[in-house]
């Protein structure tokens, strides 16, 4: 196994300076942190809850919780990773409150997932961006990602959409690194499979075998 993404020791980042000012009671510094990350928190919350109003609530609750607990933030991780962890927990609570019966163990999902190799003969050609207009593509992407189990979706969104590292994702979700990697692989392959149905359908509709 290769070692990955070493943690590089950094001088106090601009972000950490903002955090320290906010800890000392400078609300304008905290507001700057809100401005910096509100869009990310909203996207993450929306991806998890699949509900816009819930996502708006999560944005407010996550930042308020961060504000109220700022003194407890140890500065051992990035502020953003800490904030994401709070936001993910808030979003999951919303989700569970709304759909209590749908609490499924993800490890079971991983185990029961079909392990057969994907079989493909044709690549996506032309590119999906050329096959569909923006609105159609967005609709397809929304539908495909909504179909993923929540735990896979969350890992995928944090890693591939929000650009967190494997370690940061593990920290934000309270998962082990192997669990993040396993779920990420599943999520990527399942999304690919789901998109494939659309993109191949369109290609075969054009007379391709």
């Amino acid at each position, binding site marked *: 196994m*290769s070692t*990955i*993404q070493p943690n590089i020791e950094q001088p106090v980042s601009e972000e950490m300076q903002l955090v320290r000012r906010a800890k000392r*009671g400078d*609300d304008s510094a*905290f*507001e700057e942190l*809100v*401005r910096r990350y*509100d*869009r990310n928190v*909203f*996207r993450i919350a*929306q*991806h998890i809850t699949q509900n816009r109003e819930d*996502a*708006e609530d999560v*944005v*407010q609750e996550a*930042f*308020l*919780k961060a*504000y*109220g607990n700022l003194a407890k933030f140890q500065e051992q991780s990035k502020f953003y990773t800490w904030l994401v962890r709070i936001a993910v927990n808030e979003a999951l609570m919303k989700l569970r409150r709304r759909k209590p019966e749908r609490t499924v163990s993800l490890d079971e999902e991983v185990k029961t997932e079909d392990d057969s*190799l*994907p*079989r*493909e*003969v*044709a*690549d*996506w050609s032309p*590119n*999906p*961006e050329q096959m569909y207009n923006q609105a159609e*593509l*967005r609709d397809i*992407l*929304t539908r495909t*990602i909504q179909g993923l189990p929540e735990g896979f979706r969350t890992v*995928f969104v944090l890693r*591939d*959409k929000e650009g967190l590292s*494997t370690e940061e994702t593990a920290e934000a979700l309270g998962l082990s690194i192997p669990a993040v*990697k396993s779920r*990420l*692989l599943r999520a*990527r*392959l399942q*999304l*690919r499979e789901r*998109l*494939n149905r659309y993109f191949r359908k369109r290609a075969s509709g054009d007379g391709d075998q």
Partner: protein
Amino acid sequence: MKCSEFLNELTNYLDGVLDARTKSELDDHLAWCHNCYVVCDTTRKTIEIYRDSELYELPDDLRTRLRSAIMTKCSEHKKSGPASS
């Protein structure tokens, strides 16, 4: 290398976090295995499509409203002292 072994390393391969030797083994596999090549390429495209998409963007007016609500509540919180949560 078997296809299943390739698939197990796919995420590391796409993330570019493999050592040179493993990467070269995977490159060799891709050079002759068309199936894995297509799976790898379409998975890469899947990630790119999502990364570039603008799903769930927060509109500016709502952003301003939310930020203002957050800062108002923060200031109330400060005045009333830390509430037990």
